[in-house]
């Protein structure tokens, strides 16, 4: 990393005179208008033309950083004109097309009087006069949108689905809402009501699920308008209110959820409502089905005119309910006949991905090194497996089956099946499976087969998931306890029924996970 002269960036086509004009973000109370006084000179004191050009350049820099292979922004030119690639951050000049290393930045500034640089790993703006990173409201907004969504303009799917333009009007918001107290952080324990820890961990995962939170806090289900008795969705609504609108710090008593749970007579889950310990995953399935039926489909027993009568639950794919929007993805299985090459494709939707550890832990390829979540997913969703299949064409039995994810959910739930049946005896598998804080799901999708480099960076970024909640089961099969870890911002918390404590990342990652909830990054 010797001192380096600026080099011109490749792949920055200067689109001449883009007709688009940019705007400084409107002044908001409590937020300075610009990141620093120098940036103010650049953006405000040079007329609209300079401002437009600067913002346009910033966007171009972000595109270079986020839309291409990282080699491009990481490469600068040496004094002799040789390309020089480094792992540590480079700086992209905002005022010309040069890329410099950290040392070269100073010289570039001295030579050309260029004062603003974009850091090549995160796209943050560096002001050489402040000698510091600056965070300008206008530019930060662009950066966050680009790094999160991969696009400046594309809206989140959810925005369209669940927003009502009238309700977005700030005046409407001001008159119809109250500001939540600063203390209400959504971090509370839930009391154990007698072997209900399986319920508590799932409820905690719901409370910290950004989609469900926004849905319920955004009046997605108004308990005042709900005529259904003992409605689970109303109970959820109450719970979200309790968590996010009250200053209470003691545990929450989820009695109404418990009552709704007991009173909901769902055939498949009848066995679940007992005072015994239960499987958290089963409760998760129950809760999602229940909420789906309330929010999307029609209630089985109730014949009421629901204005939002959506597609009935027979066709899950078409359902627009909050549960489907949040948890459901699609799996595509491709069966290729080994003798005639006939392909049959079937698609099914999934609520969660289940990884059977009993089978996976026995595979040779996984035995050698420790099990990791990615390896398990590799086995299930990127390697073809042999299967029995009677082909329509040649009626041969041998075929290759390939499972791929066709569409990914916003919140990905992964279950590590830790229960094994052996000779009718069930036992728990205590194998440790490591899991990442950040999960790349792109390799397991059906688009990963023929990677198209042009798009794949953007695609891969939109398939990046962040760990949100980990549900852990301690104890054995007969009796045990569930605890969960959830992330709020960057801080992890351990939820042990009513008791909430701080947790470190290493503590979280070393746990023996049972359920993992990942939230797609482009959402946050």
């Amino acid at each position, binding site marked *: 990393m010797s001192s380096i002269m600026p080099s011109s960036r490749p792949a920055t086509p200067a689109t001449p005179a883009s007709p688009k004009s940019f705007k400084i973000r409107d*002044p908001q*109370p*409590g*937020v*300075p*208008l*610009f*990141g*620093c*006084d120098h940036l*103010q000179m650049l953006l405000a004191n040079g007329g609209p033309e300079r401002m437009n050009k600067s913002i346009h350049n910033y966007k171009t820099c972000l595109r270079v950083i986020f839309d291409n292979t990282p080699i491009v922004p990481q490469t600068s030119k040496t004094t002799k004109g040789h390309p020089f690639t*480094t*792992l*540590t*951050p480079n700086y992209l000049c905002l005022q010309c097309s040069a890329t410099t290393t*950290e040392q070269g930045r*100073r010289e570039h500034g001295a030579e050309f009087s260029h004062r603003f640089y974009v850091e090549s*790993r995160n796209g*943050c703006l560096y002001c050489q006069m*402040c*000698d*510091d*990173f600056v*965070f300008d409201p206008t530019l930060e907004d662009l950066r966050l949108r680009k790094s999160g969504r991969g696009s400046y303009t594309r809206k989140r799917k959810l925005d369209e689905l669940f927003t009502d333009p009238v309700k977005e009007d700030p005046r409407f918001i001001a008159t119809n809402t109250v*500001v939540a*107290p*600063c*203390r209400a952080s959504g971090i509370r324990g839930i*009391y*154990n*009501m*007698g*072997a*209900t*820890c399986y319920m508590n961990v799932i409820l905690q995962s719901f409370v910290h699920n950004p989609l469900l939170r926004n849905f319920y806090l955004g009046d997605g289900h108004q308990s005042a308008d709900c005529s259904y008795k*003992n409605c689970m969705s109303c109970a959820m609504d109450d719970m979200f209110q309790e968590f996010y609108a009250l200053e209470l710090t*003691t545990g929450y*008593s989820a*009695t*109404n959820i*418990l*009552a*709704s749970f*007991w*009173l909901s007579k769902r055939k498949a889950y*009848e*066995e679940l*409502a*007992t*005072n*015994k*310990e239960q499987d958290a995953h089963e409760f998760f399935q129950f809760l999602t089905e229940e909420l789906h039926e309330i929010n999307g489909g029609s209630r089985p027993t109730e014949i009421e005119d629901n204005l939002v009568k959506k597609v009935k639950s027979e066709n899950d794919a078409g359902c627009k309910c909050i549960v489907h929007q949040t948890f459901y993805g699609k799996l595509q299985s491709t069966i290729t006949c080994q003798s005639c090459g006939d392909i049959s494709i079937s698609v099914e939707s999934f609520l969660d991905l289940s990884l059977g550890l009993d089978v996976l832990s026995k595979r040779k390829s996984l035995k050698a090194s420790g099990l990791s979540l990615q390896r398990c997913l590799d086995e299930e969703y990127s390697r073809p497996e042999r299967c029995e299949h009677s082909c329509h064409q040649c009626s041969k039995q041998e075929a290759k089956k390939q499972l791929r994810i066709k569409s990914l959910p916003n919140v990905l739930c992964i279950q590590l099946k830790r229960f094994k049946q052996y000779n009718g005896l069930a036992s728990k598998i205590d194998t440790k499976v490591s899991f990442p804080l950040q999960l790349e799901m792109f390799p397991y999708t059906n688009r990963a087969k023929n990677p198209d480099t042009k798009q794949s960076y953007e695609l891969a970024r939109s398939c990046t998931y962040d760990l949100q909640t980990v549900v852990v089961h301690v*104890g054995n099969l007969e*009796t045990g*306890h569930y605890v969960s870890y959830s992330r709020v911002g*960057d801080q992890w918390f351990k939820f042990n*029924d009513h*008791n*909430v404590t*701080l947790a470190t990342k290493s503590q979280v990652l070393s746990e023996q996970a049972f359920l993992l909830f990942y939230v797609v990054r482009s959402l946050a």
Partner: protein
Amino acid sequence: MSNNDNSPQTGIIIPPDENRTDNMGALAHSILDDIVYNIIHDLVLKIHREEKMSKGSTAAILIERKAAQTAPPYDESNAAAPIPTHRVEVDSAIYENGKVYLKENPLKTTGEIICPKCHLPRLLYPSDGAGARKPDPLVEYCKKRPYIEKPYHDIYGQTFQMEGPGRGKKKKDMINPLLQSAKEGTPSGSQDSPNPSPPPSEGLPKPISFPHSKCQNCNTFLPIKRMNNHMVKCIGGGGRDSSRAALLKIQSNGNGSQNGNTPPGSRAGTPAPPGVPNPKGKSSPNKREAGDDFESDSSPQKKKKVLKKNPATKLKAPKMAKSASQMSSSNLSFEQKAPGTDDEDDDGDDDNDGDFGASVPEPKKKAVKPVLKKAKDLNNIGGAQPKKKWLHGKGGVKPNLAPPSESLDSAGGIKLKIKNSNAAQNGGKPLPPKNIANGSPKLHGAATINGKSAPGVVRADSESSQTLSSPN
């Protein structure tokens, strides 16, 4: 971060090694060095961003506040006239007509962080536990505070009443002097944790005890930890017991009694009891707390029952009583609570018995279960009409095989006995494990179980079942 260029480039320190000439080794070190640098860079940048943005907005809030104070009065008569420029300048920022411009690096000019929501200063250090600093008592801080990291405390610095030892949890796992001492003061809930604890020292924060909560179905208040068990009685329908519960309902329709809860009507029907010996005070003060779902009826009603029920109880009381007396020698040891007298009358009631029966299987006492089953069978055989009901009770376990005559004659005396035994329990003596002399052992087992449903005992039972089954 801002001083990156000035600080000497430090990297990972490679131990001096004679093999340093190895090219690949040097490359690996250099890559590792860069990666570690990147990790630190990104981390620092993230924190830096957070801090700088909140300081920037603090500066903005402060100057806006100042501007609001010095704002020129708005002249209504002169609305058409150009509004004079309102400009305020401080060290950190400039305010000009509603716009705020930063003047210098807010990290340098602004010391505190003000909450953008409530405009109160943020407390920057936790007030307790790791890294704690004493907050200035004269300053009102924003309520969003740093989370506390302290053993046996949660993130808000709260402590909770410990639960008693239960399955998978040993006494030694829960040694916590603070909580132990705190627990001693509180009468209910955790009596099964036997360790004598040191006297509570002064100034300790009081642990938060478990709350009571209203059942959504029947609107009674119960301790939160009983709620799930209560659901079995109150709602039922879940699990395998539902059919039994339904059957029970059908059968008991004649009585007007319902699954689990006896409506007051049925009780009103029973003639008033002649003087019921009531050796105890009405009910122990902590009755509510101790009260579990089995006695979910509100206490006023209960009192009524007491008075009216005795004749009715007489018929059935014998078994109860007997069992209770036997019970006294049984595994009562966990519970030393004063039994409310009223509860006894509850026991007399068929339906409630059903309830209790249901409760019985809860405690996952392996010893008890088989006995119960057998008892049931016996019951089947001998089943007198009223007993059948019990058979169908959710727990399904109300074996009362004692021949009616027997039970009849001994009724009164035995009742007293129960009370005595209860009193004894009150004294806090753990009772020796029982074994009953008369009748077949199975029967006795059943009987004892019955006995359990006697008030004090029931509590014990539920208490124990609670802790046992609590998955904590």
